[in-house]
C-alpha cells in the first residue's frame, strides 16, 4: 500500500518538479506570518472535446491544466496565491502572498506528513475516456448524431459533443494531510433542432458521469441520447405556452431535482448560514416543510457526476442529511465554515480548479422517496402544470428562486393532456416547502450533465427527486 502511494506522489512531483521536502518548505513559508492553517492544492487535468455538427466532425480539442494554489487561514480570513509557473521562486511568492493574510506573533510549523490512503473508489472504470483512441470517441459521437438524424425528417440541425476529463488532485496541509484523487468525468450531449413551417424548436439530451466509455454501451446507449433530443424538439413543435398565474404544479421525477438544488440545497451551504445571509440560518432543528420531505446530499454515489473520493480540501465525504421529515437537520460544510461554526466536516469543500478558493458546494442532492404513486398524484390535480424538463434554475439567499421549464404538460381533470413549453416557475423556498403536498414513491435522478455555478466557480453536480405535488405556484406563461 505504501509503495503504491509513493508512485502516486512521484507522478505529481515529476509534473511539478517538487520534492516532498520542497512542499514542506512551502507550507512553512505559508505559515511564516502566523496563519492557523496552510494548504497546497496541486492539479493536473486533461480535457478532450469532440464536436460534430452539420454532418461533419468539425473540431477536436485537447487541454492541459497544470498548476497549484496555496491557501492560508487565519481566523475568519483566507489568503490565497496560485501559479502555473513551477519555479520554486514563483511558488514561494504564491506562498508569501497567501501568508500575508495573517499577522500573529505565535508561529506554527507544518506537521509531519501522514499519507492518507482512501478506503474507497467511487469510480472504478473499465475504459477511461481520457486514454481511449480518438476514433473510438468519434464513432460514439457519430452514433448519437445519426440516431437524432434518422429519428424524423423534421430534424434539421444537430450538434453532438463528447467532453471527457481526468483531474488529478493532490492536497497537502499543515496538519500533516497528504492525499490524492484521480477523477474521471464524461459528458455526451446532443442538441437537435426541429423545423415545421416557420416554427423551430430545440431539444436536448445527454448523459455521462464519472464513468468510462462502456457506459454508453451498457447503461445509457448513445443512440438513446440522439433520439431523446430529437423527440424533445419534435414534441415542442406541438407545444403551446402554458397559461399564466398561480396553479398546482406536479414535478416529474428526476429532472425536477433542480428544484431541490435551487430551493433548498444552496441555502444550506454553510458559508451562507454562518454569514446569516441564508433564510435558513436560524432554523436548524426547526420545521421548514411537510413531514414527507427528507433531503440528502451524497457525494459517495458511485459513478455520479457530483461524486468524489475526497473533496478539494482532502476531506473524506459523507452522505449528509439536510432535511429530515420536514425538519432542518444539517448543512454542507467546508473546512473554514465547520471550524467557525464548530461543526463536523461533511466533505463539501469544492473548487473549480487550482485558481479558486474552496467553498461549500453541493454534490448529488436529492429528495428521498415518499408514499404516493405518481398516478395518485396526477389524479389529485383538477387543473395544473406537469413540469418535465428544465433549462436550469437560480436562487438568491433570501430564498427567492426560479426555474425554467423547457417542456411539460397541462393536467386537466386528473389527466395529463396538452404539451406545453417555456414556462418559468417562481417562488420563495420556505413557502414552497410548505406547499409540497405529496411526495411520490418513484425517486429518480436527472441527466448526468449538470453544472452548478457559485461565486464564479463551476462544479459538476447531479440532483434528483420523486414525483412531487406543489399545491400552488406562480407560473409564467402567456
Amino acid at each position, binding site marked *: 500500500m505504501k509503495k503504491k502511494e509513493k508512485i502516486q506522489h512521484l507522478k505529481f512531483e515529476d509534473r511539478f518538479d517538487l520534492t516532498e521536502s520542497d512542499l514542506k518548505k512551502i507550507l512553512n513559508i505559508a505559515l511564516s506570518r502566523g496563519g492557523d492553517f496552510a494548504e497546497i492544492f496541486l492539479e493536473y487535468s486533461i480535457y478532450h472535446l469532440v464536436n460534430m455538427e452539420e454532418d461533419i466532425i468539425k473540431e477536436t480539442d485537447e487541454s492541459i491544466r497544470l498548476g497549484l494554489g496555496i491557501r492560508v487561514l487565519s481566523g475568519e480570513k483566507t489568503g490565497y496565491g496560485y501559479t502555473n509557473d513551477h519555479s520554486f521562486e514563483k511558488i514561494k511568492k504564491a506562498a508569501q502572498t497567501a501568508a500575508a493574510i495573517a499577522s500573529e506573533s505565535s508561529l506554527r510549523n507544518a506537521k509531519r506528513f501522514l499519507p492518507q490512503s482512501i478506503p474507497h473508489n467511487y469510480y472504478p472504470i473499465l475504459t477511461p475516456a481520457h486514454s481511449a483512441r480518438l476514433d473510438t470517441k468519434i464513432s460514439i459521437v457519430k452514433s448519437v448524431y445519426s440516431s437524432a438524424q434518422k429519428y424524423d425528417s423534421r430534424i434539421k440541425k444537430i450538434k453532438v459533443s463528447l467532453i471527457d476529463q481526468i483531474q488529478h488532485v493532490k492536497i497537502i496541509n499543515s496538519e500533516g494531510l497528504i492525499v490524492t484523487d484521480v477523477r474521471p468525468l464524461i459528458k455526451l450531449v446532443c442538441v437537435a433542432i426541429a423545423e415545421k413551417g416557420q416554427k423551430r424548436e*430545440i431539444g436536448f439530451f445527454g448523459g455521462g458521469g464519472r464513468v468510462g466509455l462502456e457506459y454508453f454501451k451498457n447503461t445509457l446507449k448513445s443512440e438513446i441520447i440522439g433520439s431523446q433530443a430529437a423527440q424533445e424538439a419534435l414534441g415542442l413543435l406541438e407545444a403551446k405556452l402554458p397559461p399564466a*398565474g398561480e396553479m398546482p404544479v406536479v414535478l416529474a421525477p428526476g429532472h425536477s431535482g433542480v428544484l431541490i438544488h435551487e430551493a433548498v440545497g444552496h441555502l444550506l451551504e454553510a458559508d451562507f448560514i454562518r454569514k446569516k445571509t441564508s*433564510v435558513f440560518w436560524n432554523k436548524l432543528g426547526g420545521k421548514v416543510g411537510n413531514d414527507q420531505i427528507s433531503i440528502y446530499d451524497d457525494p459517495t454515489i458511485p459513478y455520479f457526476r457530483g461524486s468524489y473520493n475526497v473533496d478539494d480540501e482532502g476531506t473524506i465525504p459523507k452522505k449528509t442529511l439536510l432535511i429530515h421529515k420536514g425538519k432542518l437537520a444539517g448543512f454542507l460544510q467546508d473546512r473554514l465554515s465547520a471550524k467557525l461554526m464548530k461543526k463536523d466536516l461533511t466533505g463539501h469543500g469544492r473548487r473549480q480548479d487550482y485558481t479558486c478558493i474552496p467553498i461549500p458546494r453541493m454534490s448529488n442532492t436529492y429528495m428521498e422517496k415518499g408514499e404516493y404513486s405518481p398516478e395518485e398524484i396526477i389524479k389529485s390535480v383538477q387543473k395544473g402544470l406537469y413540469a418535465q424538463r428544465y433549462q436550469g434554475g437560480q436562487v438568491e439567499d433570501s430564498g427567492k428562486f426560479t426555474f425554467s421549464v423547457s417542456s411539460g404538460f397541462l393536467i386537466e381533470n386528473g389527466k395529463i393532456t396538452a404539451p406545453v413549453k417555456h414556462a418559468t416557475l417562481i417562488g*420563495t423556498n420556505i413557502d414552497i416547502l410548505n406547499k409540497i403536498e405529496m411526495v411520490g414513491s418513484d425517486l429518480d435522478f436527472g441527466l448526468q450533465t449538470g453544472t452548478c455555478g457559485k461565486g464564479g466557480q463551476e462544479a459538476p453536480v447531479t440532483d434528483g427527486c420523486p414525483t412531487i405535488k406543489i399545491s400552488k405556484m406562480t407560473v409564467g406563461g*402567456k
Partner: protein
Amino acid sequence: MTDEKQTIELMNIAENLVTFGRVHGADEVEVAISEGTEFNVDIRLGEIESLTEAGSKIIGIRVIKDMKTAYATSSDFKKRTLQNLVKSAIYRTTLADADECSGLPPAPEPIPDIDSLDIYDPEIPELDSQKKIKLAKETENIALADPRITNSHGASFETREIQTILANSNGFLQKYNETFCSLSIGLQAGDTDFKVEDYWESSKRHLKSLESPEIIARKAIERTVRHLNPKKIPTKTVPVVFEPLMTSWLLGFLFSCVSGISVYLKASFLTDKMNEKIANEGITIIDDGLIPGKLGTRPFDSEGVPCGKTIVIDKGILRNFLCNSYAARKLKLQSTGNADGAGVGPNNFYLQPGIKTPEEIIASLEEGLILTRTIGHGLNPITGDISRGAFGLWVEKGEIVYPVSEVTISGNLGKILYDITMIGDDLEFLSAFSGPTIKIKELTVSGQ
C-alpha cells in the same frame, strides 16, 4: 509594470510554436498567449474575508491541415508539453472532416493604434494593496451605516492586468496590454424571513474612472431597500420600463441571436432576416471595438482581425451579423472582428440612446412595471421567447407605488424590438453590453 524580457520570451514561444507546427505538417497555425496578474480582496463586516493575488498564463493553439481543424490549450508551458500538444493536434486533424470554411483569416490587415484605445492604466499595477483594501472597506462601511441595511454579502475590489499575444502562420505577430478594475458590494435589507437583496458594481479600465465608494454604496443601498415589503400582483399585460442594466441584459440576449454562429446553425430567430425590418425605426444597435477606454474595446479579435464599428441594426433594419472568420465564410459575409476564442463575442455592443430622460419615461406609465432585476434562465434564441423570474417596481399614474416580487415576465424578442416605444438618454458603458432606459409597449407579467 509588464516585464519586457518576459514579453519577448512569450512572443518567441508563440512564433516558434507556429514554425514548429508548420514544419510538422500543419497548413496553418495560430498561437495565442494570455498572461496576467489578478488581485482580489473581499471585505465583509469590516474585516478581510479573503485576499487572492496571483499571476498565470495560458496558451491556445489552432492547427489546420487539409481544411480540418484541431484546437489545444495549456497552462503548462514546458517546451516538450507544448510541442507534443501541437503534434497531437496535427494528428487529430486527420480524424476530423474537411470543412471548406475552416482556416485563419486572410492576410493580416493593419491594426488600430493601440495607445489611442486607452485600455491600459499604468496606475493599476502600481496601486498598493492597502489602498485596494481601504477602498473596499470604505464602501462597506458607508453601506452598513445605513440603518435599513441588515446584512452584507461583502464588498470586493479587483484588479487585473492582462497581456495578449497572438501569432499565426500568415505572418501575424502582435500584442496588447489591458487593465481592469472593479469595486462592488452586495447587500441585504429586511428581517430573516422577508429579506431583499441587490448589489452595485463599478467596473472600468482605469482607476480614475471608477465610481467612488460613496456612490457605489449609495447605489447598492438604494437598489436593495427599494424592494422592501413587496406585493404580489395579479397576472396582467402592461407596459414595462427596463432600467439600463435590464436593457443591457436584453441586448446580451439579442447578441446571441445576431451572432454569426447561431445564424449559420439556424439557431436564431433572425436567421433569414438580413436586410429586413426587424425593429421599429428608433432602434439602432452597434458593436464598436474602438471606443477609447471602454470595457469591450480591443485592437484586434482573437484571430487577429482588427476590431471596428459594425452597425447591426440600422433604424430598424438588420444590416449585419457579428462574425469570426469561420461564421463569415459560412454566411458569405466579412469577419466583423468579433472572434472570441473559438466562438464569437461582443466588443462594445450597445443600443443608440434616445432623447427622453428616465424620469420622463417612468412618468409616461399610466400603469405598469419598472423591471429592476431578473433571475433564472428562460431565453430561447431560436424563437426569441423570453420567460424569466422578475423583480420590479409597480407604477400607477407615473408614480412608483410599491415593489413587486414573485412575478415572471414573458414576451418575445422579435416583438419587443418593435414594441420599444421610448428610449432614454442615459446610455453608460457599464459592461460589454450597454443600453439606456427603454419602455416596452407591453409584456405579460405573471403573478397570482
